[in-house]
């Protein structure tokens, strides 16, 4: 009887742990939707696993154009002073026209932290910044 109770308790704990892992996003998504509304990314924090191809669906709900550029600090520093009017040739540099959606697929080779930012004038200062954690 006592063994049965112990087993039940362990089983419940394992189930709870699994649920908690699901809630906190430990499992890596293969497809992620990022909405752009009032010039902000939603969600602005994401976690994915390294070595897994992830498709980002960028949905711009605003009537103005935006960008979604993801990379490290040096990458963003270059783009803050860049002059490219349009992006799309590289999968980590996407232009998202007003009221449209685009998709891009990326595989991150190693764990780390990157930022996704819109570098159109004034947009980063307005808060168009998100953080991607790669586990």
């Amino acid at each position, binding site marked *: 009887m006592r063994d049965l109770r112990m087993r039940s308790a362990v089983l419940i704990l394992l189930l709870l742990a699994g649920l908690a892992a699901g809630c906190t996003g430990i499992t890596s998504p293969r497809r992620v939707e990022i909405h752009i*509304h*009032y*010039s902000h990314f939603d969600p602005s924090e994401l976690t994915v696993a390294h070595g897994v191809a992830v498709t980002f669906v960028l949905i711009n709900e*605003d*009537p*103005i*154009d935006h960008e979604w550029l993801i990379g490290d600090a040096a990458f963003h520093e270059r783009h803050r002073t860049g002059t490219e009017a349009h992006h799309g040739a590289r999968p980590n540099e996407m232009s998202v026209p*007003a*009221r449209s959606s685009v998709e891009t697929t990326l595989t991150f080779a190693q764990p780390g932290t990157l930022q996704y930012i*819109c570098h*159109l004038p*004034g*947009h980063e*200062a*307005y808060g*168009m910044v998100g953080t991607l954690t790669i586990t």
Partner: protein
Amino acid sequence: MRRLAAPLAALALILAIAAPTLACGGLIGPNGAVNLLRTTTLAGYHDGVEHYVTAFEFAGGGGAFGSITPLPGIPSSVVRGGDWTLQRLVRETNPPSPEALSFAAGAAEDRAVVLQQVRIDALDITILKGGGAEIGVWAKEHGFSLPPDAPEVLDFYAARSPIFMAASFDADAAAERGQAIGDGTPVHLTIPTHNPWVPLRILALGKTAGETVQADVYLLTDDRPALLPAPGSKLADGGLKLAHNEAASGELLADLRSDKGMEWVPAAAWLTKIEIDAAATSLRFDLAIDASGAGRPSVRDAGFAPFGPLPAPPSWNLLWVMLVAFSLGVPIGGGWLLVNATRNGGGGRPLAG
């Protein structure tokens, strides 16, 4: 003085004058070489009609640029404004120095609907109707680059009044016309509406944290107007200051009335001046004005109330049914209880005591 005057006889004259540091607002032209020196706006209210006058000053350069102004209603006419109304009001509360006086002596679906288009000098005026997104798309399609806060700000206004005035200034055309730097082009809109309000939040469009908005707002009403937020109040967050508050002089009113299109100015009025000097991030409201004499400026017009359609008033039929049910229910229910109590009292156990 005329507290019993009919609400529709109220008059409100509103003049918003951008300080030299004030960006013109909504739309920023693709050609950064052109600067809007300043935007001056006047809206008058009399007999249920608002008279809105805006002047754009040519600051040199080339290309096209413009601004966007939320309006409380659809204009019935858009014409060239008078020549001195704005300057005369400024002079009333900011007397010029003697030196200055001597110088003076010398869209498909989800698209915005275009209601009117008027060309005045080098200025293209378009009156638009649509939601914030539709107005934004229209602006984009017409070559303007909106700042990142535009989607939220346009929605803020469109939820209350889906009418906007887009003004596009063709600096090349202005130069061809021989307009000198500093020359203004006044525009006069006539807008039937219940009560005027002054769009203030639009003045902060495109401004970043740390920047300020400075402007002067003049009101001319039959009586002292009720304002929301009241200058100096906590709601105004220190951004509004009451700088002038007294009966307008007969000389001022006569001068205004003598300008083109200003015949509607009445014989007597109250003049109020509000100075705006607010952090762009704190200017998230408009100035609601109750020009009716009721003393109740609209929370909604000030931008403090939730927007969207107002809740439908309760059905009178439903209220009558509830009233009848209540009226009948009380005596019937009471009678039933009384009968039960009588029966129980007759056949039940005797009460203690």
